[in-house]
C-alpha cells in the first residue's frame, strides 16, 4: 500500500520559497483573520469546538486539550494564565523549532485565540535556553503583533486585552515538565511539583489556575477555530484526530519533518517510502517512535492482540512496519507516540552504546529532587558508560534492568518513566546484545569520544 500524501496544516508554509517570518508575509497569507473572527464569538463556543475536535496535546503525553481546558478552575476569582510550552527538548524532536523560526505568527495567533477562549489576560511563551534565535524571532514577531493590535491592549479594537511575554529557560530538559516549567517561570529551580495538590489547572503559576500547552497544539487550535472542531475531527482517525508532525532522524535516506493525518500512515511507510528507506547497504535494526524516552521497537518483532475498530474488536498482528503512527496504536504495542520524534537506528548501531548515550542525557537532565530518578538515572549512566569505556560484565544487563525497574511510578514527575523506559526496553528487546557485549568489545574499538 503506497503511503498517503502529506497533509500540511501546521507546516503549511514551512520551507515555502518566499515565505518569511514577518507580519506582512503572514497577513498576506490570510494571517490573524481567524483571530479577528474568533473575537466575535463566545469564548465557550471556542472551547466547545476544541472539545469536539478531539485534539490531543502534542507535547508528548497526548492529553486531550479540550479536557485540559475544562479542568481549569474558573471560579477561584484568580487570574488564569496560559503558558506556551516551547521547551522542546526531547531528543529526536524538532517540530516546534520550525514553527517558531519560520511561522511565529501562527503560534501567536493560536495562542491569542486560546487565551480569548479561556479568558486569559496574561500568557507566557517559555522557550528553551538553547533557542536564542527562536527567542529573538518571537520577540520581533510579538512586537510586530503588538504594534498591529493583535496582542496587548484592546486586541483588534475589541475590549479584550491580553499580552504575551517570552521567557527564556536556562537550559534544562526538566523545564518541559509543566510544573517544573512553572517553577522555573516563577524564578526558582525547575523542581516539578507534587500532584496532588499542585495541578496547574488549579494551583499553577503563582498558585493561580494555569493552562500549559505545546506550541504545535496551539497551532492546531488556530486551525480548529478556523474550520471547526468537526472538520478537524475528520482528519486522522477517531481518537487520534488532526495531523501529526513526525520528526525523523537517524539512519534513513531522507530524515526530516513530515506532517500526516494521524494514524493514516504506518511506521514502515514513513521510513521506507517517505524517508527513502535505510542507507545503502544497511538494514533497519531499531526505532524509537516518540522521542528518546519512548520505548524502543526492534525490527522483526511482532505485536498481536485485539483492537477496537469502530465498535468491534478485531485481531491485529503487526510487525514494526505495520504499526499505524497514532497515540493509541503505539500505546497498544507498549511504546508511545510522544512528541513525534522518530529515531531510527540501523545495523551499524551497537545498542549498548546507543543506550549509554541516552542514559548520559537523562542523568544530566534529572533535576535531582526525588531519589529514584536522581540516583537511578546516574547509576544507569555509570553502568552503561563503564560497559562502553571500561569493563563490561555479562551480569550488567540484569543489573541495569533491576535499577531501571526501581524508578518508574515512584517519582514526582514523568521523568522517572522517561529515564527508565529506554533502559527497560533496550534490555527487553536487545538483552542478548547486552549480555554479549563483553565479547563484542574484544573485537570492536569503542568510540574514542568519551560521553559526557
Amino acid at each position, binding site marked *: 500500500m503506497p503511503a498517503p500524501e502529506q497533509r500540511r496544516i501546521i507546516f503549511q508554509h514551512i520551507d515555502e520559497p518566499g515565505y518569511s517570518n514577518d507580519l506582512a508575509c503572514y497577513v498576506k497569507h490570510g494571517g490573524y483573520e481567524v483571530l479577528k473572527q474568533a473575537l466575535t464569538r463566545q469564548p465557550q463556543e471556542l472551547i466547545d469546538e476544541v472539545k469536539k475536535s478531539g485534539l490531543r496535546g502534542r507535547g508528548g503525553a497526548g492529553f486531550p486539550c479540550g479536557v485540559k481546558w475544562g479542568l481549569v478552575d474558573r471560579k477561584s476569582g484568580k487570574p488564569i494564565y496560559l503558558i506556551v510550552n516551547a521547551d522542546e527538548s526531547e531528543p529526536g524532536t524538532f517540530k516546534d523549532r520550525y514553527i517558531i523560526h519560520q511561522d511565529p505568527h501562527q503560534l501567536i495567533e493560536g495562542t491569542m485565540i486560546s487565551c480569548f477562549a479561556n479568558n486569559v489576560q496574561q500568557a507566557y511563551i517559555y522557550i528553551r535556553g538553547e533557542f536564542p534565535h527562536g527567542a529573538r524571532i518571537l520577540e520581533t514577531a510579538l512586537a510586530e503583533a503588538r504594534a498591529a493590535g493583535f496582542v496587548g491592549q484592546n486586541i483588534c479594537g475589541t475590549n479584550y486585552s491580553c499580552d504575551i511575554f517570552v521567557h527564556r529557560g536556562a537550559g534544562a530538559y526538566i523545564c518541559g515538565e509543566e510544573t517544573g516549567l512553572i517553577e522555573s517561570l516563577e524564578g526558582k529551580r525547575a523542581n516539578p511539583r507534587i500532584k496532588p495538590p499542585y495541578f496547574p489547572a488549579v494551583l499553577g503559576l503563582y498558585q493561580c489556575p494555569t493552562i500549559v500547552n505545546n506550541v504545535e497544539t496551539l497551532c492546531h487550535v488556530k486551525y480548529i477555530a478556523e474550520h471547526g472542531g468537526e472538520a478537524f475531527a475528520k482528519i486522522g482517525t477517531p481518537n487520534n484526530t488532526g495531523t501529526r508532525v513526525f520528526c525523523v532522524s537517524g539512519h534513513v535516506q531522507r530524515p526530516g519533518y513530515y506532517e500526516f493525518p494521524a494514524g493514516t500512515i504506518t511506521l514502515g511507510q514513513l521510513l521506507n517510502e517517505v524517508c527513502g528507506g535505510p542507507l545503502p547497504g544497511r538494514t533497519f535494526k531499531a526505532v524509537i517512535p516518540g522521542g528518546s524516552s519512548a520505548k524502543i521497537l526492534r525490527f522483526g518483532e511482532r505485536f498481536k492482540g485485539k483492537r477496537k475498530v469502530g465498535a468491534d474488536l478485531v485481531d491485529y498482528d503487526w510487525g514494526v512496519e505495520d504499526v499505524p503512527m497514532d497515540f493509541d496504536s503505539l500505546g497498544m504495542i507498549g511504546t508511545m507516540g510522544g512528541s513525534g520524534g522518530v529515531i531510527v537506528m540501523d545495523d551499524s548501531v551497537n545498542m549498548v552504546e546507543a543506550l549509554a548515550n541516552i542514559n548520559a542525557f537523562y542523568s544530566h537532565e534529572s533535576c535531582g*529532587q*526525588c531519589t*529514584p530518578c536522581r540516583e537511578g538515572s546516574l*547509576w544507569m549512566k555509570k553502568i552503561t558508560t563503564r560497559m562502553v569505556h571500561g569493563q563490561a560484565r555479562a551480569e550488567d544487563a540484569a543489573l541495569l534492568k533491576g*535499577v531501571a525497574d*526501581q524508578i518508574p511510578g515512584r*517519582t514526582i514527575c514523568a521523568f522517572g518513566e522517561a529515564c527508565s523506559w529506554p533502559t527497560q526496553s533496550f534490555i527487553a528487546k536487545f538483552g542478548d546484545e547486552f549480555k554479549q557485549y563483553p565479547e563484542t568489545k574484544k573485537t570492536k574499538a569503542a568510540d574514542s569520544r568519551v560521553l559526557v
Partner: protein
Amino acid sequence: MSAPVAKPADLVTVNIDGKEIAVPKGTNVIEAARLVNVDVPHYCYHPKLSVVGNCRMCLIEMGMPAVDPATKAPIIDPATGKQKINWIPRPQIGCGTNVSPGLHVKTTSPMVKDAREGVMEFLLINHPLDCPICDQAGECKLQEQSTGYGRGYSRFIEQKNVKPKRTQLGPRVVLDDERCILCSRCIRFSKEVAKDDVLGFIDRGSYSTLTCYPGKELKNNYSLNTVDICPVGALTSTDFRFKMRVWFLKQTNSIDTETSVGANTVVWSREGVIYRITPRRNDAVNDTWMADSGRVLYKQVQAADRLTAVQINGNDSALDIAVNTAAELFKAAPGAVAVVGSGRSSVEEQFLTKQLAAALKAAVVLVSRVGEGDGLLVSADRNPNVRGALVTGLISALPSSQPTGLAADIDAGKVRVVVAINEDLAAAGLTAAQLTKVSVVYLGTHKNATSDAAKVVIPTLTVFEKSGAFVNQQFRLQKFLKAIPAVAGATDDLVVLARLVAAAGGATVAGDLAGVWKSLAAAVPALGAVTFANLPETGLLLDAAPFAALPFAEGATLHFKPTAKA
C-alpha cells in the same frame, strides 16, 4: 502530632493495614499511621515543615472503596462480602496524601517493600557509608531505615560521587555534602521557620549539592535546628561533633531558661557531664525548635567562675556556719532586711523566698531583664519565671529593671541586710558604695560583683542540677528535671532557702521538692491539684485571667500572642 481536638464531623475513618481509625480531616497518611502504631519511614517529611515529597521513602499502597460509576452504589466483593477496594496500581507518597473517607492503606505489601528497598538502595549508592566516624551514628535515619527496610546488600560497583566535605556553613554548623540525601529539610526550615533564606541546592541530578547562597552564612540564632532535623550526618554541630557517641548519653527533659518562652528541651549528659541540649517537641510551645543561644547554657555548669565554696567574708566556710551567720545578721537588723528574689528561680524556690520574706517581714524586690524579642522563640522577657513569682504570690506587680526603692532605702539606712537570690545587685543598678553599706547574704551559682561584696556566699545549683518548674509566658507550668549531680560545694536552693527560713525565725518548712509542693498546693489555690509528679511533660496551662491587666513585656512569639494591653 497532637492534632487539635476535632468535632466528630471533622473526623475521617481510614483503614491502615486492616486497622480502622478515625482521624481529623487534613491529617496525612504518615500521621494517621502513627496513631495506630504503624511506622511509615520517611526522610524529607517533617510535621512542622511544608511537604515536598522528594525522598520517596514513604511510598505506600493506597486504595479507595469501589463504587459503581453510574449508581454510586458500593461494589461488593463476593469473596469477602465486603466492599471492594480499588487499589491504585502505583505506590503513593504518605506525606503528600491527606486522609479521605474510606481510604485504605497497605504499608507491608510486596509493592511497598520493593519500593522501600529501591529507595534505600538509591540513597546509599552515593552515600559515603562512613558511619564509624560519623556523629549521626546512633540517631541516623539512614542507618535505622536501611536496617529496617533495606535490602541488606549493595549492587553498586561504580565510583561514588565526590562532593565537598567539612563546609563551614556558619559559626555553628558544618556540612558534609557527601552524606546529604538532599531531603531539603534544612532549606525549608531556614525559609519557612527561621525566615532566613540562605540555603539552597546547586547543580543538578545526583550532583546536586547543598550550599549557602553566595556571600551568605547560616548564622541565624536558629541554625542548629537544621542539625536536629537533618536525618543523616550531613549537618553537624560544630560544638558537639566528635565529642561523644549519642548512645552513651542520658536524656533528661528540661526547659530553656533564656527567656519566658520556656522552650522544652532535652539535656544530653554522660557521667555528670552535659554534652548538648536539643529541643523537645511541644506543639503548644516551641514545636520542635529552639534557639541556638539556649543550647550553650550548659557551659555555665563547669564555667571557671562557678561558685563552689561557702564563704564568709571571703573565707571558705561551711553551710551550717553560713546559715548561723545569716541568722545573726537577721537578728541584728530587725525590720531592716530586704529580699531580692529572682525571675530565674523555680516556682518552688520563689515559694520559699516568699516564706523567707514573710519570716523576715522584709520587702521583696525582683529584677526584670528585658531584651528584644525575635518573634519566634526568644521573647522580650529574659527571665524564665516572672509569672511563677506572680502565681506563688511572691510579687503582685511586675518587677522594674532598676530597684530604685531598694537603693533609696539603703541610702536612708532603712535596709541594712540584703538577701540576694541569684541576682547580681551591681548589675541591677546598685552602686559599689551602696553594696558596702549593707551586709549581703548571696545565694547563687556564679561569681559576680555581689558575691565578691557579700558577707555570706552560699553556692547553689544551675537548672541542670536540680528539678523544679517554671511558668512561661503563656502561664504554662512546665517542669525540668535534674540531669546531672551538683558540682561539689554547691547546695540545692530549696535546702538553703528552707534553712534560711528557719534562721529567720519562720515556721519549719520542707526543703525537698515533694514537701514544697505539698505546701504550695495548700497555699496557692491555682496549684491546688498539682503535684510535681503528676505535672504533664507538655506542661499545664494555668489561669492567666487574674494577671491579665499587667503590662507584660513580651510581644508575639511562636504560639503566643500577648493579650491586648489596656
